[in-house]
């Protein structure tokens, strides 16, 4: 049965001040209701300041990165009325589309809008925190071009990557919110609200498809309705049906003159815009001769891609560099749950490390240890190698001594090897590497062992 999925995605823009006033946007770091003024709390008589230019530019850039056409007619800001405690004026300001007819990985991008975040309402205490009220959001509306939760998930991941490439969204992540529309072929469209992560979207879609299929099996017609995703219970629950659909009574906001985007502005933003991830991926494959997998891994984050290019330039061997990024750097980052940007790693340090490894000063295992140290505390590569005594052991007598000790300590493994179990060799090599804290070259160790065991 064909499944049809589309999204409305909201992501906060990383501007210093809010969309219609000068209050700061760093609401996570401050006490509730401190980043506020009469504008973002909707005090009687307060008017929106002219729209934050940084937010407008960010929305244009995101629309361009999503291959949208930028709207050249006057773009009106609409008032969307609804009654909820988090909305200080009883309406939310949302722009008509800034970008239209875009596309990302085969998924149509219908519209890109700019709007303001409401405050945060806590139903338990009944309190509202207006620190978030007025923070700029970009809203991205996709075509219903996805056909499975897996496709939806990979689209959302790609979109996240593009948004982070622009550097115009909150780098710390976790600010993406989305609604999804889903229907099974021939059935009514169901909207699911309250989804706060890519993982959440995947789970909500999985649940909803199962729910709709079950209804069909039982001969029940799926109603057109809006449902809420309850993340903790991993289910969706009905909010309202079509008959009770809200009427937002949209009107153009009389306090805000329509936005006019000039050709000049578009040109200026285009000239400063980063290369889109999929274009970067193709270029890396072509320019550096990388495999698709290597290029994919490295372009997953723009800071990593930039660092890779620096390494390729300084170190000169893109192939081995790519392999180091994909297998060592990404592994360490994953283990520490860090992005490349957060890790403090630099292209220069990695280039130096690779050169030291190639010259035989350290082993692969030693290089990995340096990376592990660097992500915890940035420092000079050579000093870390010295301090941690990671210099490769080249003196034969030191290695021979370690090998002898290991053989004495592991008679069982020696016996296994001698009785024909070849894999026992790897176990013994591992023990030698551990004893030398990775400073031995495993190839040399193997040679010594073969000599020793005959």
């Amino acid at each position, binding site marked *: 049965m064909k499944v049809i999925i589309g999204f409305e995605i909201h992501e906060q823009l990383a501007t210093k001040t809010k969309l219609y006033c000068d209050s700061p946007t760093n609401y996570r770091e401050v006490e509730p209701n401190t980043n506020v003024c009469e504008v973002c709390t909707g005090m009687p*008589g*307060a008017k929106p*300041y*002219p729209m934050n230019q940084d937010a407008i530019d960010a929305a244009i850039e995101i629309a361009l990165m999503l291959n949208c056409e930028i709207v050249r007619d006057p773009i009106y800001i609409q008032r969307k009325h609804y009654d909820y405690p988090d909305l200080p004026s009883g309406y939310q300001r949302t722009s008509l589309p800034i970008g239209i007819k875009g596309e990302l990985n085969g998924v149509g991008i219908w519209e890109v809008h700019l709007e303001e975040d409401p405050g945060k309402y806590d139903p338990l205490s009944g309190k509202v925190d207006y620190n978030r009220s007025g923070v700029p959001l970009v809203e991205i509306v996709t075509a219903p071009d996805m056909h499975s939760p897996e496709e939806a998930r990979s689209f959302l991941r790609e979109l996240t990557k593009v948004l982070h490439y622009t550097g115009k969204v909150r780098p710390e992540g976790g600010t993406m919110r989305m609604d999804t529309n889903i229907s099974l072929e021939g059935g009514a469209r169901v909207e699911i609200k309250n989804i706060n992560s890519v993982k959440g979207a995947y789970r909500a879609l999985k649940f909803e498809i199962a729910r709709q299929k079950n209804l069909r099996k039982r001969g029940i017609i799926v109603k057109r309705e809006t449902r809420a995703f309850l993340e903790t219970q991993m289910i969706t629950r009905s909010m309202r049906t079509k008959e009770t659909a809200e009427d937002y*009574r949209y009107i153009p906001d009389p*306090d805000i003159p329509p936005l006019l985007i000039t050709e000049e502005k578009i040109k200026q933003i285009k000239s400063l815009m980063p290369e889109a991830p999929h274009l970067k991926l193709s270029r890396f494959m072509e320019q550096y001769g990388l495999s698709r997998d290597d290029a994919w891994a490295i372009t997953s984050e723009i800071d990593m891609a930039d660092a890779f290019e620096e390494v390729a330039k300084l170190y000169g061997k893109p192939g081995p560099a790519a392999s180091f990024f994909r297998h060592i750097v990404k592994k360490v980052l994953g283990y520490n749950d860090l992005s490349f940007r957060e890790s403090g790693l630099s292209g220069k340090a990695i280039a130096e490390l690779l050169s030291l490894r190639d010259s035989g000063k350290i082993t692969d295992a030693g290089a990995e240890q340096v990376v592990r140290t660097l992500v915890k505390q940035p420092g000079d590569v050579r000093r870390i190698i010295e301090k941690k005594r990671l210099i490769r052991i080249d003196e034969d007598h030191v290695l021979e001594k370690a090998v002898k000790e290991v053989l004495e300590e592991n008679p069982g493994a020696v016996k296994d090897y001698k009785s024909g179990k070849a894999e026992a060799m790897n176990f013994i090599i591992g023990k030698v590497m551990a004893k030398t804290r990775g400073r031995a070259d495993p190839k040399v160790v193997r040679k010594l062992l073969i000599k020793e065991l005959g």
Partner: protein
Amino acid sequence: MVEVTALTDEVQEKVAKYLDRARREDGDINALIELNPGAEQAAKEVEKKIDSGKGGRLAGYVVAVKSNINVMGLRATCASKTLENYVSPYDATVIQRIKKEDGIILGMTNMDEFACGSSGETSYFGETQNPRAKGRIPGGSSSGSAVAVAAGFCDVALGSDTGGSIRNPASHCGVVGFKPSYGRVSRYGLIDLAMSLEQIGPFANNVRDAALLLEVIAGHDPKEGTTIKDQFQGYTDNLSADLDGWKIGFAREFEEFTEPAIVRVIKRGLDRLSSNGAEVVEIALPNLDKALPTYYLTVFVEFFSATRKYDGRRYGYKIEDVCGREVLRRIMLGRYISQKEYSGRYYKKALQFRSLIKRELLHALEAVDVIAGPTVPKLPHMLGEKIEDPLVMYGYDVLTVPTNLAGIPAGVVNVGRIKGVPVGMQIQGRPLDEQKVLNAMHALEKD
């Protein structure tokens, strides 16, 4: 009556006199909702500045403020129970500018509730008397501001004009009132009736004082996106009654809508303009009859939107629970016509007619320097004579609303009386050409 004029008395003495008179006489007149407890202290400071030669352009002027404009520390009630306890936490841009030029705030004036009215009768704090036409309404909605000037409680006052709310009471109370071009004065801090139509403007006893207050409050405001960025010249410096070579337009449609006695007074005003060198020419405004429905549809929708914040969560009361009938009527009609299924029929149509009316007025103003005519088509009714039919009430606005729909400047100055009741002439000008409007008004007052 004690004579008090700006800059002649010592400032402290003058403020004390105004406060004293307000305390003694306002009980009957009801022009004021709240006096500024800081007025005397402000006067002291301003006097010091004047003595040291550092007084601002409004030094010594005492200003009354309509209760829909935020003055920090005073109540901006909009004369409604809805906001009876709302103390402004900030100054409107116009108030900042007045304070910077050493104007002294007397207090907050009475008004029609949320500026919804043309009579001064719908205030939660009670109706306001017309001191220049005893027993009659003062007009509205800036009733208290017009009356405060007429009653001698202050030198000048601020009102707001969405469809005539400055010009209507100025005409009925025989004072000078001025509505600037849309975007000329910042609305930052003005509590909304209909955002796309309204402007803050001055009341005064003479055109020069009105021009002075206007030039202090006018000009681009970086906090208000609809204000216009242009350099305007000082209105008082360029004030002149010489209308040599001017063409003044009078629309034949004005007569259709206006009581004959008022037309006669207005025509005498036109003669005065002629004697100052202007030629009066007839113009046509055939779509004048469409202005009223266009205006009210726009007001209903925008007012509905503007009042959504009074949901009972922040300001004590939900507006629909405590407001008067006229406010409720407008909210309900706004809610009704802004529904998705009707918006095409009403609001969008209103926007279309609005551009038609604007085009017509701008076209007429291409051929003339200003348009002169009556302000209000009928005399103010007697207080207590309740007008129940909203359409009859709305009829007061037929000549003032086109100005707001077109966003052009207009001022009112008294040109005569009918059985003692003041009649004001309305001068409308080209967008941003407040100077010509002020000069024509100046010519009328100079005799």
